[in-house]
């Protein structure tokens, strides 16, 4: 086994109603320092974490959604979002934040970190991992 493991953070819960989404992101940020092969998966209600224009002033809770846009700086560049989960919720890719990263292997070209995948592709991605952390 190589020194680098494939870590997948699986996000299946909506933001704000419970703390899992926020505390998942806190693990991702800390975990980024460990130079592992990191991906994030968003499925079921987890896709709601990525919606645009979140404004938490009314509920008095901190809005953590801008943090997703900083993930590129932590070399977290793959956010897989399940298409079927979006469809069931009446969402499209346009409803999600734009999250970009600079690809160091491609002359630092700006690329989107969010990759919409089918349920079958998501299943394959899950099956390739060494460690799966569920939130």
């Amino acid at each position: 086994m190589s020194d680098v493991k494939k870590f997948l953070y699986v996000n299946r819960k909506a933001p704000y109603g419970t703390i899992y989404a926020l505390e998942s992101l806190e693990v991702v940020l800390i975990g980024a320092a460990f130079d592992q092969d990191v991906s994030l998966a968003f499925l079921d209600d987890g896709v709601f974490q990525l919606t645009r224009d979140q404004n938490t002033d009314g509920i008095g809770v901190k809005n953590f959604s801008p943090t997703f846009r900083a993930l590129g700086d932590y070399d977290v560049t793959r956010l897989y979002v399940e298409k079927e989960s979006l469809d069931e919720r009446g969402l499209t890719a346009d409803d999600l934040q734009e999250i970009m990263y600079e690809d160091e292997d491609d002359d630092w070209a700006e690329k989107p970190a969010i990759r919409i995948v089918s349920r079958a592709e998501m299943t394959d991605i899950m099956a390739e991992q060494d460690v799966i952390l569920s939130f």
Partner: protein
Amino acid sequence: MKIGVVISEGPYTHEAADTAYNFVKAALTAGHEVPRVFFYHDGVNVSTRLSVPPQDERHIQNNWTDLAREHGIDLVVCIAAAQRRGILDRNEAERQGKDTDNIAEGFRISGLGQLIEMGIQTDRLVMFGD
């Protein structure tokens, strides 16, 4: 009107304590009375004075303590639920042989009878939980 409130989930983990807080403020603003808030299940964890949330997040326990002081709200923490989860006042700590208590100012530990009494004495009961 007299409105009683129950909070059944822990702070930060679940939005219940936040929604309840915003609801109670609105009820008071509208001229209603909120004589008591009863903390049950993990709701008892709202009452710890040891919570230290990040600087840029709301301080849920402080918010309740302040609101209760300002409006004379009776914040009651269920004793049975609190014992299981490690929430104690000085009396309980002594009685149980524990070296410290951890309850915050403005909260008091009492029995489930206070919940039933609240149900009897208020015009409406609203529960926040999971």
